[in-house]
């Protein structure tokens, strides 16, 4: 049987996480190929509904990766993103879906290594959780 | 005479009165009331019976008042606006007079959120100032609010509360003036610890001439422990306990705190007697009724005058 490879949707900030993803790809900081990167101009623009819909559509995990606090290009977008992720987690919990499938994190500008680490850790955690129960 | 109560007669005669307080039990046992009454008898001039104090369910004030009358004491029935609308209030007032109750205290009442039924719906149909006006109209004009004539004689000596330490401080004497205008006969204040602030308040009251229009009884409560003092200062609205008072309790040392608390109280009672405009003391012993005789003796307020 083929090993379970969690499908992760990563909403990545254009100013930090996206650059980190590019660099990580060129260097040897590998991150799992099953990650789908979605570029957003700022994580503040990611809505709760985007997070829910990704899981509803069958993603195993959703991560929002923005800038370090205090370094958002739009000042507070990452703070907003973190709060929305928390709210979405509680909405998921009401439905009985593990909060661990949602995550907010940040990388510094050239943070290719951390970017890869976030996704690798999340992949491992999702492997432990198993596939999105909505897919079974 | 407004009601001819003991309290009214003594105050009118210019006696420095002392009233006590009794919280009815959280159940129907009349003996609890009788036992507490026995401790207060002949040691105070009248006894306030609280009305579901702190919004916690207790024996009704009116029933406990009747028990006190039967025991030979004079009660002051407290009535809060939280639990009754004007219809129930007036009905209870008729009942109170019928049972021989001659003093009452008009209060807004602690909000139910502080009690044991925070989920209850409150009433607050009328406020404490309107309540004073209502009782005065009933007594002096023999009419209920709707102006229907009252059948028979309704009498009552009307009291109300005042918190000199609540905010905004400058407004407090003006609120008292409003109670006077509404027709209050006597006032009992919130517990006083900060004597300087109370003196400043009384100066304003005297300057406004309010002490000539109603009798002002200064409220006091003994500090039983340092924990109680700190709790009250932190949690009871409008209670300010000066640091030097808490220090005195602390310096008294273990085992002597309660005695020191009583000593402080007696000193306060003596000081209050000399403040212009203060017509008496309202001693709220709060579950320390058994120590009231000792306090009254030590403070030099015994024996009590007779009518």
């Amino acid at each position, binding site marked *: 049987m083929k090993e379970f490879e969690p499908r992760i949707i990563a909403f990545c900030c254009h100013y930090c996480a996206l650059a980190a993803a590019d660099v990580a790809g060129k260097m040897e900081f590998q991150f799992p190929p099953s990650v789908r990167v979605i570029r957003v101009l700022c994580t503040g623009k990611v809505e709760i509904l985007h997070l829910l819909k990704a899981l509803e559509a069958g993603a195993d995990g959703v991560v929002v990766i923005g800038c370090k606090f205090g370094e958002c290009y739009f000042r507070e977008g990452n703070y907003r993103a973190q709060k929305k992720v928390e709210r979405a987690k509680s909405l998921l919990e009401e439905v009985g879906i593990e909060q661990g499938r949602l995550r907010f994190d940040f990388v510094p500008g050239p943070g290719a290594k951390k970017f890869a680490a976030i996704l690798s850790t999340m992949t491992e955690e999702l492997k432990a959780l198993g596939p999105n129960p909505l897919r079974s | 005479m407004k009601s001819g109560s003991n309290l009214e007669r003594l105050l009118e005669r210019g006696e420095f009165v002392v009233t006590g307080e009794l919280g009815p039990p959280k159940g129907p046992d009349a003996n609890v009331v009788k036992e507490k009454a026995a401790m207060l008898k002949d040691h105070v001039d009248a006894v306030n019976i609280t009305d579901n104090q702190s919004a916690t369910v207790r024996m009704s004030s009116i029933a406990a008042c009747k028990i006190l009358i039967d025991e030979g004491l004079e009660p002051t029935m407290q009535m809060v606006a939280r639990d009754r609308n004007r219809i129930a209030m007036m009905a209870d007032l008729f009942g109170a007079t019928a049972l021989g109750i001659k003093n009452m205290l008009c209060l807004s009442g602690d909000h139910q*959120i502080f009690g044991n039924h925070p989920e209850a719906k*409150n009433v607050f149909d009328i406020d404490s100032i309107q309540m004073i006006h209502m009782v005065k109209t009933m007594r002096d004009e023999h009419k209920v*609010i709707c102006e229907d004539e009252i059948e028979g004689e309704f009498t009552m000596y009307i009291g109300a509360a005042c918190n000199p330490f609540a905010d*905004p401080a400058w*407004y407090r004497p003006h609120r008292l*003036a*409003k109670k006077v205008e509404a027709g209050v006969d006597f006032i009992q204040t919130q517990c006083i610890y900060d004597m300087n602030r109370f003196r400043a308040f009384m100066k304003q009251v005297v300057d406004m001439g309010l002490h000539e229009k109603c009798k002002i009884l200064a409220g006091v409560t003994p500090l039983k422990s340092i924990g109680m003092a700190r709790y009250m200062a932190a949690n009871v*609205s409008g209670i300010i306990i000066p640091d030097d008072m808490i220090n005195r309790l602390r310096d008294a040392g273990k085992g002597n705190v309660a005695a020191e608390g009583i000593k402080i109280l007696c000193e306060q009672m003596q000081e209050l007697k000399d403040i212009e405009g203060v017509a008496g003391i309202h001693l709220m012993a709060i579950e320390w009724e058994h120590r009231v005789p000792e306090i009254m003796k030590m403070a030099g307020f015994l024996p009590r005058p007779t009518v």
Partner: protein
Amino acid sequence: MIVGERKPFSEILSMVEGDSKILILGCGSCVTVCMAGGEEEVKILGSQLRMAFRRNGNNAEVTELVALRQCDDEYLEDTPLIEKVKDADIVISMACGVGVQHASTFFNRVIDDKTIRVVPALNTTFMGANIDVGEWHERCLGCGDCVLEKTGGICPITRCAKSLLNGPCGGSFNGKCEVNKDTDCAWHLIIERLEALGELDNLKKIEMYKDWRPSHSGGPRKTVREDMKI
């Protein structure tokens, strides 16, 4: 405006147990502004319901719609909307209590062949103002006899926990209410405002017993404008 907040999901879920065609109907007015029952919240509830159903192997169908105003026939008189309602086993209204009742009455009047069940997804909390992003405070109780001209534009009936009409109780401390230290004492605000307005004399007058008949105490109320009727 009317402020509401969504009920817990489990409560909503228990209302639709056994239904296979569910219509979520949002309201585009007050509850959209207070982010409780507009288009976004309709979609979120829809997503939650679909996820919950799929987890339980339930094949119920969830449809999402928004009416601009559920408290007015004019915005419900929409043929495609009525068809969707007719087709549904249950309508979850995300309007305030007014909208839920009005939509229910309306649909049952215009649809003959079945009785439509309309259930609420929100708790209607109060009439209030938007104080900050994501924050609303109660401002009016609808007592039917406004006194704001005497109290410097601050309502003691609504904003004093005891609805006192003659000044602050003994629990006013540092400008805050004893019932909740995060809540301003209404009377403290009134006194400050009257002082600024030079209307402190208002405080000296005894405000007499309030006539509560115009309030809900007089029974359900209605307003009729004869000049608007034919």
